[in-house]
């Protein structure tokens, strides 16, 4: 036996008066060996406890349907996320491919970690109003706090259920959300000339434009081939 076995020392502290307890309390359940029991009783209770635990596990072999297993990624086609699930951010485009973002930059100002960068055309030639140029979203710094969706006065943003966003190059996680650079759907409708309205919608690639880190050339890193993003 070791010569010195240190004994835990009770901290020297006068007994504390805890006063009247406001809570109505439940006393703890005694353990098997914590009670004064005979050896036979202890052995029986211990045996019973262990066997009941084993039987619980075994009983699930009898009813395997109650065991939950998510068959992901096999169920990819049928998998449905909840309506409110916060996945990839997206700018809502209507059937004609027009968005409703006026580039008011409220979401950019209230984003807690500057994950949204908006550049705008200060005065559109046709409408005479400011128009969205690029809506850049940095998925790599986004915390999915949902504040941009909540504060948007025109309800043009939404969080989609798309959660599979792994890429091999993190520069791919910074991209444009808008499909064209130009005025909103409402402003385009006001233009009487359809041809003029079409002309205002300059098509936008996901990785187009001077987006920070976005596939652009960096020190020692060649330019990324943006024509072929990873998802295929």
């Amino acid at each position, binding site marked *: 036996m*070791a*010569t010195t076995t240190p*004994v835990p020392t009770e901290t020297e502290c006068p007994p504390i008066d805890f006063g009247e307890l406001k809570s109505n309390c*439940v006393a*703890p359940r005694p353990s098997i060996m914590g009670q004064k029991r005979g050896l036979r009783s202890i052995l029986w*209770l*211990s045996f019973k406890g262990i066997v009941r635990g084993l039987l619980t596990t075994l009983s699930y072999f009898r009813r395997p349907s109650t065991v939950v297993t998510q068959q992901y990624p096999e169920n990819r086609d049928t998998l449905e996320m909840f309506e409110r699930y916060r996945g990839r951010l997206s700018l809502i485009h209507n059937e004609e491919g027009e968005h409703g973002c006026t580039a008011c930059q409220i979401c950019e100002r209230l984003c807690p970690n500057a994950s949204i960068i908006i550049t705008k055309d200060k005065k559109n030639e046709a409408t005479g109003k400011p128009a969205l140029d690029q809506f850049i979203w940095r998925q790599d710094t986004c915390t*999915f706090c949902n*504040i941009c969706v909540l504060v948007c006065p025109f309800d043009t943003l939404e969080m989609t259920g798309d959660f599979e966003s792994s890429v091999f190059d993190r520069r791919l996680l910074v991209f444009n959300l808008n499909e064209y650079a130009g005025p909103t759907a409402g402003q385009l409708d006001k233009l009487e000339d359809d041809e003029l309205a079409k002309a205002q919608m300059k098509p936008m690639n996901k990785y187009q434009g001077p987006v920070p880190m976005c596939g652009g050339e960096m020190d020692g890193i060649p330019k990324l081939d943006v024509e072929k993003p990873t998802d295929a």
Partner: protein
Amino acid sequence: MTVEVSSLKELVEQASGDDRSPDTQEYFVNMGPQHPSTHGVLRLVLKLDGERVLRCIPVLGYIHRSIEKISEHMNYMNCVHLTDRMDYLSSIMNNWAVSKAVEEAAGIEVNSRIQYIRTIFAELERIQSHQLWWGVLGMDLGAFTPFLYGIRDREVLNDVMEETVGARLTMNYVLPGGLMADIHPNFVHRVKEFIKYFRPKLDEYDDLLTNNVIIQERLRNVGILSPQTAVQYGATGPVLRGSGVAFDLRKDHPYGVYDQADFEVPVGTIGDSWDRYWVRVEEMRQSLNIVEQLLDNIPPGDFLVKKLNSKIKIPEGRYYSQLETARGVLGVFIASDKKDEPYRLHYRSPNFNNLWCLEPMIKGDYIASLIGAMSSLDLVIPDIDR
């Protein structure tokens, strides 16, 4: 009162100086920061004599993200989402703590529907936190089965919350002045289904772990924390209640609508790991009772009393507010200089204080007991460092 601050080097040099035993050599071992049973990046410097722990010096700072400093440059709505990343298993309660502090300081009154929903979500969050703890405790002690059972039931509950909130871990649901969204139309029905599902499962938990004599003996008389020490070290939550001190903010200083629910507070006797284990298992039952009582009485009303993009300004001064999370008292201190950003935001996190109870609990005991005792403390490391 004087406080002595000593560096790790001084502590180790001091501890290595007093080698008392003539026949055994005392030595130091680092447990962590990558040890699986520390549940994160916590480093414990252990001074050992054979297998006995003579000193246990926690070393922090491996997951420090300066949440308090970042908050000084954010408005109060944005501060909330960072608290998800502190104690990630009670994120809604953390959100609520900040929102409560801001609301009390800025004088925003929230309606009773918001209070009901917040209370229900806090209790559901407490249940899922304890479910995970229960499974992990079994895994730390060498039983892998409970982990799968705990996670299975937590998955059911997470789905219920995900339908309303939209996220599973970093929820960011409570805002100063209300909630991010109203409850989903299915919510009440699905919570009722969950309660019906989970009550029998708690008996299954008892069969698997609670009534097992091996688990009981790994926990009984291990890591005894006397009520005096617990109060001295500022422990709160199930750790304090396990030591026999009946202090629960939900009863003693009711917030939300806890005063309208009838529930009991489980309290231990001697403060060993078994008492803490039992307190948490019983808390799950009590939380189910609370949710069941409140669920049918959610009054109608708005889910947000303040416009979202309006600036919340707090009058100059210092404000403190606290509530009971799954691990203890989370206090929020705000020093304001009349702006819409805090001048200083400090969190009194429960895990930080609970962690220091480890040394008085475990001094002179075996390393194997240290694992069980630490698991019974239910530490979440990101909450310690913030």
